[in-house]
């Protein structure tokens, strides 16, 4: 009897794990194994030792690219916030119908492959594109090129990443009890002071979530900055690509990838200790 019982229990505890098996195998083959390989290459290619890391930390170019990556990620995050916060506010304070419409527009662009969106920006911002044409129309002769600048890559990345910000803030705004706002109003709060003392702090968790998500994704962005950005202001992922594709410097590229990974984990770690990582995805 006892044996039957324990076997039954075993059966039940094993089942969920069995269901997870395909996912575990997938993660092992396509995530853990390559990651270990990258780690290994960073300390073995071209010769064993920490030489690659030394280069990453002392080479002027690499430091500059890391700094530039941080700068771009920060700029993109701030822009996403500036664009996203009012939009999320609009969505959570309009009629359900209009909110649905805006949501649809956002998700539609969200579901379009970001490669497609990147090319779309190339067409729009190109020297023969409609935006340059418009600028010339209003009388500015010989406008500066928009494509392959910090402006174009930032614009495209904000476009791609803003939905993450909007969704995070929107979901928090939606959950704010309107009675809290009423109650603040009955105590004399209005306009700016109502926003500063009540609304903004209540939506802060959404801002934190959105910002971390946008920042972390932006740190590792590859295609968009490579295709749209200025060649003089590379981001880390692009540089890693260069090292491997052009110079076949697998070791150095791997070392940079590891440093980027560690930095990303540190950002997430700080977030986790303040808010809890489980909240990041709502």
């Amino acid at each position: 009897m006892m044996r039957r019982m324990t076997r039954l229990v075993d059966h039940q505890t094993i089942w969920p794990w069995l269901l997870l098996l395909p996912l575990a195998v997938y993660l092992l083959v396509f995530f853990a194994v390559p990651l270990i390989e990258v780690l290994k290459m960073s300390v073995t290619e071209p010769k064993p030792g920490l030489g690659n890391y030394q280069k990453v930390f002392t080479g002027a170019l690499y430091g500059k690219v890391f700094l530039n990556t941080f700068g771009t990620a920060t700029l993109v995050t701030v822009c996403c916030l500036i664009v996203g916060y009012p939009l999320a506010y609009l969505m959570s304070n309009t009629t359900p119908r209009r909110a649905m419409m805006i949501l649809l527009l956002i998700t539609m662009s969200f579901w379009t492959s970001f490669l497609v969106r990147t090319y779309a920006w190339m067409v729009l911002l190109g020297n023969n594109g409609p935006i340059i044409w418009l600028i010339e129309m209003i009388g500015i002769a010989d406008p500066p090129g928009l494509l392959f600048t910090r402006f174009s890559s930032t614009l495209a990345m904000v476009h791609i990443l803003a939905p993450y910000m909007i969704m995070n803030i929107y979901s928090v705004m939606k959950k704010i009890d309107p009675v809290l706002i009423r109650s603040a109003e009955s105590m004399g709060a209005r306009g700016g002071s109502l926003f500063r003392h009540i609304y903004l702090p209540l939506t802060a968790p959404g801002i934190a979530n959105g910002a971390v998500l946008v920042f972390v994704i932006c740190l590792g962005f590859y295609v968009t900055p490579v295709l749209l950005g200025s060649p003089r202001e590379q981001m880390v992922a692009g540089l890693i690509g260069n090292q491997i594709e052009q110079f076949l410097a697998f070791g150095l590229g791997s070392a940079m990838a590891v440093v980027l990974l560690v930095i990303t984990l540190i950002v997430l770690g700080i977030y986790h200790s303040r808010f809890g990582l489980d909240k990041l995805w709502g």
Partner: protein
Amino acid sequence: MSSYLQLSGINKTYGNFTALENVDLEVEKGEFVTFLGPSGSGKTTTLMLIAGFATPTRGTIDIEGASLAGLDPQDRNIGIVFQNYALFPHKTAAENVYFPLQMRDVKRLEGMRRADEMLDLVGLAGFSHRYPKELSGGQQQRVALARALVFEPDLLLLDEPLGALDKNLREQMQIEIKRIQKKLGVTTIFVTHDQTEAMSMSDRICVFSNGKIEQLGKPLDIYHRPKTKFVADFIGESNLIPARITDAANCKAQSNVLGDVTYGTQSGTELRDGQEVSLVIRPEHLKLSSKRLADRMSAGIEIETIVNYGDNALVIGTSESQQIRVRVPGADVVILNEGDKCFISWTQDDVFVVTD
């Protein structure tokens, strides 16, 4: 003589739904008035009109003779306690209480001192630095009360503030709110759907039903002299017995269940001979006896159920297939058995007439 708060001819419609109809109310300075009524009867709507979160479709609201029309909620100087407390989760208890002062440009040092004093008054000394989620329901309630009072409002509105608390805590908070209200002398409107709460706390009760004020009066007046069937039924336990007026001038009515009845003198409602009405007798005013008593009116019943509560018992009997409820002292119930036939008796003053 004008009163402190005055609502005259208030109507409120949403589309073609009438939420409030012809509400007139006068509240004296320092008075504690309770809005009592079932859910959906218009209590919250009335509070929101007073607070300025909605505007009446018709009618006026004045405080001390000055109209509130066109005044934003921010400028009305009214303290509100909402049902779910509505404490700001990102502020400590003291910061919550300081907030209305902060909005009135009181400096932080002075404001926090006053917040602490107010927390002291509501019995929360030492909890200033706790966040709302670190406080129990009753404690959150006290913070909300302190926050609504700290800026010395002209009026305090409480919308079912005790609804979420368990029974013991409720009773404790009823006494606390009453004590604080008395001490500060603030004019208060308290909303509840619990009649015992209304009875125990109020100077006057305003009974709402379907967007109208059914009756307004002192708790005991409303209890002993309800004007409508609704009020008689909603407040306290009642036996409602159908009857017809036979002689309005001499207070006589006739009922299948009770026979010929003389009812207590009626004030307010005009009655006609032949009018169909309900007779109301409170269960505790009926007496049970084995014989007819010479000095009281009586009728025979058969005991169906006896429910013991220790200090008293509820005896449910039937007469002419109408249920009659009688409250008897706990000591008297031992001689009664289910199935016994006996008599209920009453005096003229125990019976009153209500119309629909």
